[in-house]
């Protein structure tokens, strides 16, 4: 189980980066970045997981163990924040297309000299 969970986190990160490298359209790059970010969510939740434990909603006298809520708190705010950052990146893409007329990363040469 350890190998499967950590392996998924590494897999998502690597294919996300691979998508960014091979991308021909800036919007595709942004979506691949989002996939890479999902790898970190999986890693965080896998760290906090305990076999046989329940969700972190407790009663006053809790007998059943629960999984770690700290990493879940980190992950859930991360998800909403990265959605707004994705929106910011897409707005940047729109501006780039207006200024340079293209959204192909290979054709963007404005940073040169």
């Amino acid at each position: 189980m350890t190998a499967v969970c950590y392996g998924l986190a590494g897999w998502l990160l690597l294919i996300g980066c691979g998508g960014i490298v091979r991308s021909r359209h800036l919007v595709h790059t942004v979506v691949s970045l989002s996939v890479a970010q999902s790898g970190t969510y999986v890693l965080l939740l896998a760290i906090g997981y305990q076999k046989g434990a329940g969700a972190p909603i407790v009663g006053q006298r809790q007998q059943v163990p629960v999984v770690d809520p700290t990493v879940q708190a980190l992950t859930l705010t991360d998800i909403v924040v990265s959605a707004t950052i994705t929106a910011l990146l897409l707005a940047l893409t729109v501006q780039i297309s207006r200024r340079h007329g293209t959204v192909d990363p290979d054709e963007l040469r404005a940073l040169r000299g």
Partner: protein
Amino acid sequence: MNAALLLVSVVLVAVAGLVVVSTGDPRRQAVPYSVFSLCLTVLFVVFQAPDVALSELAVGSAVVPLLVLLTVRRVRRR
């Protein structure tokens, strides 16, 4: 939690992620991204994280695909 359930959810997420990344045309990426988000939600529920699953479902199923489709429409030039 069943080991088989975890294995199935992990495989679904891995395959859905690969599909999203290998779809070259961003117009066709919105729906696979929505499916990827759904598979990720199932994985989060299997990890006993309902808050995170709710967050991922709300964000990934509607907001991000809508943004992607609107951006693609805006940047398309003849």
